[in-house]
């Protein structure tokens, strides 16, 4: 009969990514998740047009990934992109901000509960976070679970450009979380305001309202990159490596 879901599932085979046991495949890290890289011929800051978000800093000659919305307007100004459908090198971009205490792996073990709060996103980051629970990424295999209430949460994922109406909500949410607690800023908007840096609705980066431990750049970051951020927060990644 047609309703044998198990058979259907078996027929599908394994869809789930091998990450973090091995590097993610090119399918899992899409092209537009890769940051611009200045070549020797780079024109700072990003040609006459300039970088729309100010991510390209002509003073330090550095690209601030937290601001980059991956629009690639700078490609004409000597910034290189790995093209084609994805490349793994440099794909993983999440980093600790320095707030994060060491030894989180010891604290959380293999159970890590995460809550997402939207403080003014365009919905793309929300969807990418939700996508983590689909079979391709299958968050629960790593003991990471989404929760609905900050009172059950170990970590808070903040997405979106912080809106005036959400400042108190964000603070209340953070205060309702039990210690020890971690905060992930996911996406350019949460980290720096992204493209909405100068928009009326934007108040401040999430990190100004509550202490942020991990940032995951991207616009939006792909699920694997968010996963990397989560593993980093839970203390399950080595500094550079794939798996502790």
């Amino acid at each position, binding site marked *: 009969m047609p309703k044998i879901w198990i058979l259907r599932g078996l027929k599908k085979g394994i869809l789930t990514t091998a990450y973090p046991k091995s590097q993610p495949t090119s399918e899992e890290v899409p092209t537009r998740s890769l940051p611009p890289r200045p070549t020797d011929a780079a024109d700072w800051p990003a040609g006459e047009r300039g970088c729309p978000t100010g991510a390209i800093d002509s003073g330090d000659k550095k690209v601030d990934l937290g601001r980059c919305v991956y629009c690639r307007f700078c490609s004409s100004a000597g910034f290189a992109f790995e093209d084609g459908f994805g490349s793994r090198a440099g794909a993983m971009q999440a980093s600790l901000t320095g707030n994060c205490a060491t030894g989180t792996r010891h604290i959380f073990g293999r159970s890590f509960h995460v809550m997402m*709060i939207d403080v003014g996103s365009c919905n793309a980051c929300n969807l990418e976070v939700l996508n983590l629970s689909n079979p391709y990424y299958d968050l629960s295999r790593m003991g990471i679970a989404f929760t609905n*209430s*900050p*009172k059950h949460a170990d970590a808070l994922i903040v997405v979106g450009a912080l809106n005036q109406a959400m400042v*108190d*909500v964000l603070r*209340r*949410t953070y*205060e*309702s979380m*039990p*210690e020890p607690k971690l905060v992930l800023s996911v996406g350019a908007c949460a980290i720096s305001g992204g493209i909405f840096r100068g928009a009326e609705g934007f108040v401040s980066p999430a990190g100004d309202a509550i202490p942020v431990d991990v940032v995951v750049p991207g616009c939006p970051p792909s699920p694997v990159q968010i996963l990397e951020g989560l593993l980093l927060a839970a203390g399950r990644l080595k500094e550079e490596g794939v798996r502790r």
Partner: protein
Amino acid sequence: MIPAYLITSLLFGTLALLGAGFVLGLFAKKAAYMLGGVGSALGAALSLIALTSGRMVAIDLWLVNSTSYAQLQVSPLNAYFLLISSLVWLGTCLYSVGYDDDYPKSLSSLLLLTILSMVIVLVSGDAFTFLIGWESMTIASFFMILEGKGDKEGVRNAAYLFLAFGEGSSVLIMLSFAGLFSAAGTFSFMGPAAARVVTPLGPWIFVTALLGFGLKMGLAPFHMSEWLPIAHSSAASNASALLSSTLTLMGVYGIIDVVSHLGGYQLWWGWLALTIGGVSALLGALFSSVSEHSKGLPAYSTIENNGMIVVAIGVYLIATYYNLTLLADFALVAALFHAFSHSISKASLFLLNGWMSKLRGTFDLSSANPIPAGGGRGLRPLGIFTALSLAAVPPLAGFVSEWMVLETLFQSFRFGDLTSQILGALVGAMVALAAGIMMVTMTKVYGFGILWPRRTAEPGKKGGAYIGGGLVYFTVLIVAVGAAAPGVFYLASQAASRMLGANPYGPFVTGLLGVPAPFVILSGSPFGGFSPTFTALAFLSILLVTLAITGAVRARPPRFGLRVRRTPGWFAGAAQADDSTAMYNSFGYSTPIRIMLRFLFRTKESVVQVGSVQRTVIRSPEEYVVDLEVLDVFKKFYDALAMWALGLSAYTSRRVMSGKLGLYIVYIMAALIFVLIYILLTTG
């Protein structure tokens, strides 16, 4: 050996003190209640002595006819019921000293008169004395209900309805007694000496007794008789506690007493009791869960609990029919035990609810009225014991007895025929469902009525030592009856011993799996067992460990790496609403049941558009009564009956009676004597 004169003097002491309280109540309320409390304490002492010693004492008063004396008697059975009632009265009197400040003095008088008549009902040794007590009890409580607050019309209607049901009950009981008399040839069949009567009139006697006493207990289909007077008249809390927990207890006593004098049980008696009991339990629980009246809700819950008692009696009857001695014994003890735990828990709930309603100025559970500071803040946590006991949560009194009732039903597979087995299983399901619904209901009444209402800073009425004392007294009693269940089991089995031929305590109370001897209650030789005492100890130790950890962490936070955290409530990110209209209320809590069971509750929902304002109307049973609309077929029937009775009583009151209490009693006496003479003549 306890000397008979000790019991006699204690009995007369109790009666004298209560009588004195009745008179004193006309002058000084507080003193009267104190006197009543002392009298009740004396009654409790008397019954405890009589119960443990097993001593039976009969006191002849005067000769009624050639064979029967008007008698007072103390036997283990009525001593057990006297013990329950006395304990309830003691607490109620204590509470009343602090509570009864804006009711007239006559309320205290009537309350004590009601208690006095109940004592007479319990210690009566013959049908005659019993009925005198019964009638004066009915009439005293009728006047007590008339003292209730609320709209005058409603109070009067409720009181008259109560009286109508009371008289109906009296008539049925008289018919039952008449049957017993014709078979036994004496009026002293209430007495301890009487042997079991086997007679072709048995069905007649049983059915009239079940219906007559059932009317008093508010069993379906007479459930109006219980909740309506209490809820509708918003009777004083101490009066409601008395009505709902001990007045209905008299009905339980009556049924058990009549059954104890009958022999030759027939199978269908048990079926009848099971059916009426099961339906009452379920209906009571369901109606209780949708009630928004802080007194109507517990009153419905009384129907549920009395239903359970009747179910246990039904199992007793069937088991006796099939000679299942062990099951019969356990079922009877379960009925007696449940009467105990229900009475104390229910009285406690009424008193607590009454006090909270008084503080909030409303009987409406879904009201947003706050509780003012001062009175009752410390009493709120206490209420959890009462609520949990009625919701049957271990190890409290209510759990032990409900567990026992359900265990008897589990064993209905032992019955000898298929019908009984199926009925047993069905009724078991109904009782279990009722118990489950009560959990929801008690959450509601405790949550919305006691725990969750907002607090205000401005001080309100002060509770005082007496109110607090009364409520603490009941809480201690509830915990004690649960934790010391084997002891209560002993008392209940002592009460049942004459009926069962021997004290059934032995096979049921034992030790098991490392729990020492008298602490495990078994429900049958190869059946379930449970130790309330050790459960209580386990709970207590968990509580103590938690408290110890909390204390330790508070004292030295950093060393343990643990802290006591206080975080604000979580409202999905929004700030906590201060507005009362933004708060979840008890009406909303039980609306899903109203909507799901609309066929039962006849729920009607309508949205009325008034200009640009939308008004919604959902009608719950309570509101139906207020609007005098149709609740169900029973209510419709009784409405018609009430109209007819009102017409009749208007006629008779003009022609026959001037409305005086004495004349009423004379009238009842005359009716009784008429019936008795008729039966004497017809049976030769």
